């Protein structure tokens, strides 16, 4: 897959254009800088220019090339021809992603000579700039994973406009959040020098976040194109559970400020919830057979790990229980009032559950479930912000109680004078209702699909290939 994608990608005009433009721009800049080498600021100016153009190339142009990768295969019907081979859906998606990332790596390698030349202009924080370069590349890889994963979605809006505007902003906010959270406001290049615990922890978390988010978006793309008989859900859920457990342990031990807890957990849980609650494929006999071989253990495991949204609901309940553990430790260890943090956590949880309830109530099918989930989630958050604005303009925060059934509104209410205890009670009730409704719907569908698979397997005649 990588060979094919590289063959195509390296001949693509978009890559050749970016590659040549970058070389020409950097060449001209270095020549100009050489002419004006007397200036003390020349080195840092060149650094800024190199990083700016490199960032545009790999953080904007390269990820945007991923937007059409899977959608064009689906539109041209070539995806069917590929899944008829021995290529799994995961290999198809990762092959496409790795081809674009390889081209980004090629661009990265070609700017190294310019950085070596820039070194002789002096004033260079060598380690800081190398780490920054690596971080830009890792961010580019994660953004490419997001666009490649979303490119399998049928929604043009989701796969083009959302990434175009939200990705650069989102990655910037994430990095700044981590940087200022730990580093308390130093400059980016200095902060990347890994000369303090804050720097090392922040960059480690940032890289881990990029890897995790990138993996989940690639997994989302895989789910959208995979034939029903390919089970990608189980491994993905096990990874999500493992990462949640590690995060919970690290948070329970190391997090001193409960303000961070909801955000860390939301970062880990959101991708897992989004995919588990929107899986649209039926549970098919080949997958069911693999679990049923393990008897009772397989059946219990299947409750959480079978492909499909019904078991996804149970899996998300399990993740919620696991994610609740650090709250106990943090509150008991530090004696810190966490009412607001718990409201934020419950609000985030409800925000993740609400779109799932809507798409299952309206029985949305196919890949549209994923795009509708994301769009509904984003729309409910925007609506909550609008309602908050309206309430503030009317100087009447009580107005928000009308919309308290919309979980993000609880988060908005925290910005008003409404008593935390009242908000806590409201969001708790909303979350319980959402969970209960989803559990009932899931249980009904889950039992039906188990029954049908059992009937199907019991009726299967022994088969063996025949030679004509």
């Amino acid at each position, binding site marked *: *897959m990588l*060979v*094919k994608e590289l*063959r*195509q990608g390296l*001949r*693509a005009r978009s890559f050749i254009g970016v590659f040549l433009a970058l070389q020409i721009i950097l060449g001209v800049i270095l020549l100009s800088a050489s002419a004006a080498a007397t200036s003390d600021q020349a080195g840092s100016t060149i650094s800024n220019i190199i990083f700016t153009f490199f960032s545009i190339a790999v953080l904007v142009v390269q990820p945007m090339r991923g937007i059409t990768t899977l959608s*064009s295969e689906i*539109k*041209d*019907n*070539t995806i*069917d*021809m*590929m*899944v*008829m*081979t*021995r*290529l799994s859906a995961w290999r198809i998606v990762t092959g496409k992603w790795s081809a674009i990332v390889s081209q980004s790596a090629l661009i990265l390698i070609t700017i190294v000579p310019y950085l070596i030349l820039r070194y002789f202009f002096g004033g260079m924080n060598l380690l800081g700039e190398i780490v920054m370069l690596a971080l830009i590349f890792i961010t580019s890889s994660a953004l490419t994973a997001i666009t490649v994963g979303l490119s399998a979605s049928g929604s043009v809006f989701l796969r083009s406009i959302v990434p175009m505007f939200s990705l650069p902003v989102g990655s910037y906010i994430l990095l700044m959040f981590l940087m200022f959270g730990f580093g308390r406001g130093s400059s980016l290049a200095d902060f990347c020098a890994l000369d303090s615990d804050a720097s090392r922890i922040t960059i480690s978390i940032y890289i881990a976040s990029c890897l995790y988010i990138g993996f989940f978006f690639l997994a989302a793309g895989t789910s959208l194109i995979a*034939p*029903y*008989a390919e089970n990608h859900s189980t491994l993905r859920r096990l990874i999500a559970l493992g990462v949640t457990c590690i995060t919970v342990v690290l948070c329970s031990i190391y997090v001193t400020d409960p303000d961070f807890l909801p955000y860390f957990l939301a970062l880990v849980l959101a991708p897992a919830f989004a995919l588990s609650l929107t899986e*649209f*494929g*039926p*549970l*098919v*006999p*080949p997958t069911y*057979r693999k679990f049923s071989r393990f008897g009772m253990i397989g059946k219990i495991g299947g409750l959480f790990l079978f492909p*499909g*949204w*019904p078991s996804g609901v149970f899996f998300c309940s399990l993740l919620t229980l696991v994610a609740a553990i650090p709250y106990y430790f943090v509150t008991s260890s530090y004696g810190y009032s966490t009412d607001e943090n718990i409201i934020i956590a419950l609000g985030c949880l409800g925000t993740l559950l609400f779109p799932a309830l809507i798409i*299952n109530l309206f*029985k949305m*099918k196919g890949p549209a*479930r994923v795009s509708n989930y994301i769009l509904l989630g984003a729309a409910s958050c925007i609506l909550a912000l609008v309602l908050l604005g309206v309430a503030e303009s009317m100087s009447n925060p009580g107005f928000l109680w009308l919309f308290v059934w919309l979980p993000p509104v609880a988060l908005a209410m925290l910005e008003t004078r409404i008593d935390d205890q009242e908000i806590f009670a409201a969001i708790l009730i909303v979350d319980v209702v959402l969970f209960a409704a989803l559990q009932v719907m899931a249980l009904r*569908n889950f039992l*039906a*699909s188990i029954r*049908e*698979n059992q*009937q*199907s397997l019991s*009726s*299967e*005649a*022994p*088969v*063996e*290939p*025949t030679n*004509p």
Partner: protein
Amino acid sequence: MSEAAITVHNLYRFFGPLQAVNGISFEIPHGSVCGFVGANGAGKTTTMRILASLDYPTMGHAEICGINVIHHPAEVRRLIGWMPDHFGNYDNMTVLEYLDFYARALGYKGAERRQRIDEVMDFTDLVPLADRFSNKLSKGMTQRLCLGRSLLHDPQVLIMDEPAAGLDPKARVELKHLIRVLAKEGKTIFISSHILSELGEMCDSLLFVNNGRIVHHGDSESLKRTSDSLGGVLYDVQLDGDPQALSDWAILQPNIELLESRKTGGRIRIDTEDPARAADVLSRMVRDNLRVIDFHREQRNLEDAFIDMLTNIENDQNQPVRPPPPVPTQSEPPPQKAPNEP
């Protein structure tokens, strides 16, 4: 051991309220070419996609060479070659690279891969186009390339959805030739097309589908033959000489009726389908000194037969046509219902 290359039993596929495939059953023996005919939206592509393990039936059972497509999709994919009804070609990729990619994807390595690519390029006459970019090919060349791709792993069964659509006459003849060669090699070919006359020429049997149901399964000759409701058969007769002699002769013959006189002969009706009677009639004509230069049973073309069949179904809605019962197999599994989708 199944004797059929393709077995479909009580297959259903619903898309919400739409019943795309509505309980169809049929069998296609090994080494035969079967045409799949139906109007747009009749359920052809859906059935073919289920057989290719690309879609999942709402209910029912399908096998390729005795392997259940629902339970063993990976094994089924090794046995079938799939040509979809429409597909795009890759930008910036030559014909050779295109086949090389699919050969790699199918697991061929080294010399074996090169050999398979050479074989299919030779078979599909793609050698002169090896370095041409695949998105610059004509429709006919693209179809040959797609056929070559689907033959890379030497499948036993070839499923072709509308392979002749959009082809010019020359490309259509080339494709037909390739399909005939494949059929001679013993491959089972399941092919859908709108060009019924060509299907009739190359197919051993035809499946007519309408509204997701099979309305006919048999050879094309039986469809072309005409007979009236009383079992009479029409023949075209051409004479060398006065056509009036035919009408004079017919009046004197029992069980023969002249339906129409023409410049060079006429149409007669013989009251039975028995071919021996036709031979007897012809010998009597010769014996009575009619100078017969042509005597043949009147045939409809397949398009007319298909239209007639659809018209009859529409006129007879109170008596829905039932699909022919499947030939019982030794261990026929009961129909299975697929799990519900959300």
